[in-house]
């Protein structure tokens, strides 16, 4: 069996949708265990009001709840069993760490995320590819 455990990073962007579809396809073909990891990005840095932080946090929580539900539904539709993990943190670091600690043998992720900040300092995909301890598939 080429892959036993596949980790796919999701963030609701178009690129991550493509990556998710590819990961589901691969998991169905190889009967691998599939886990979708959604990384809650940072709260607004240097906020002026607690309200701003609370509202963004609430929006993020709602967004990721919806994302997790959609991922489960899509995987179920394809007949693939999936676990969805939503965690706060630094995306590249978290994806790399979860893959390492969970002994995954493939990471699947999109080539870029939602926002300009994703492109300002190099992509998460580049970072994961550089530091991951298992093969990485970057989907366009």
């Amino acid at each position, binding site marked *: 069996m080429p892959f036993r455990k596949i980790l796919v990073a999701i963030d609701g962007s178009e690129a991550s949708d493509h990556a998710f579809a590819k990961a589901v396809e691969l998991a169905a073909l190889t009967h691998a265990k599939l886990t979708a990891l959604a990384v809650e990005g940072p709260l607004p840095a240097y906020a002026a009001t607690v309200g701003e932080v609370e509202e963004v946090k609430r929006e993020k929580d709602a967004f990721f709840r919806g994302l997790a539900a959609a991922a489960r539904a899509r995987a179920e539709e394809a007949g693939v069993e999936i676990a969805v993990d939503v965690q706060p943190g*630094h995306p590249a670091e978290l994806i790399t760490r979860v893959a390492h600690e969970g002994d995954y043998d493939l990471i699947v992720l999109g080539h870029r995320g*939602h926002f300009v900040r994703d492109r300002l300092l190099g992509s998460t995909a580049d*970072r994961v590819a550089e530091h991951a301890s298992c093969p990485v598939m970057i989907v366009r």
Partner: protein
Amino acid sequence: VAALLAATVLIASMISVEIGLSVALIELVAGVVVANSFDLDVPSWLAFLGTFAGMVLTFQAGAEVDVPQFRREWKASVSIGLVSFFAPFAVVGLVAYYGLGWDRREAEIAGLALSTTSLAVVYAVLVETGLNRELVGKRLMSATFVTDIATVAGLTVLFVKPTIWIVPFVVVSVALIVALPKGSPWFFRRYGNRVIEPEIKLVFAVLFVLMWLGDRAHSQAVLPAFVLGLVMSGHYLAHRTEQERLRVVAFAFLTPFFFLKGGMSVSAGALWANLGVLAILFAAKMLPKFGGVYPLARRYTAPHATFTTLLMSTGLTFGTITSLYGLNAGIIDRTQFSLLIAVVVLSAIVPTAIAQRYFDPRDVHVAADRHAVPAVSTASAPEGAGR
């Protein structure tokens, strides 16, 4: 000018979403850029709107305090919070007075503006690190509240030049503080939950009355506004929707103009010409915060003492409010205001970045695991997979 500023506010919001920085900070910087690029002065309508927005921010800051938590942790919080206020207040005041040759009132404004701790900056970092659910985080939030209330009390007490109007100002303030929490459930039940928002209009009317009386009394209404928010915090905790609506109105129309006005009053040229003074004032804020808070943090927030001390050294909203008060009241000039705002902004960024980069509490908890995990540079990696 209004169209230009409205466009600036819109662009600031878009940039905030794209790069993950607080919209307030971007509005502040946008104000500096717009005013200095187009040689704009603050128009009178913006000055008025900004002053009122400062009151709304102060009310909101009070309403965001977790009073029951503060009651549980008041001993640790009071000591850290008071030291966090008095140490930089004294040092900055003395440095400004003796070292920079500012007069007493200018030095007091400097001391107050740079003694603050930003509740919002602290809260965001605590939520991200998960520390807000632990005792350390709760103590830190309560201590920040103590520092904030010391600042608003200082602003009210130090600059009061009482007239006969001080009597109605104090009487009405106390009456509102007592009556509003008691009367608001009835008012909100009868008039609330409507698109015309009588609840928000009630809060705004009360704040306008306080501003007017404070002005007549030659005093500042920030203390009663903060305490009013504080006594309403329980109500808002039970009625989150009302608080959310107030925030929507504030974020959409009021606070942008407050920060924009703050930025527009900054002279980039004056800052450039006084970089040495800027460095002195920054050090005068940071060093006493460290000297004062760190020993207490070791006692009350170990093993995160350095992290706690760095977060207690942050500042933003109350520093801006205090500096703007000093400028509007003619106590400080534009150069002094520019220096204070620059230090306030630096104090929001520098200690927070250091705390997150080098003293992240999650590193303490997972230090052992980290050795086994490939490291990814947080300085250069993006937030691509996260929203």
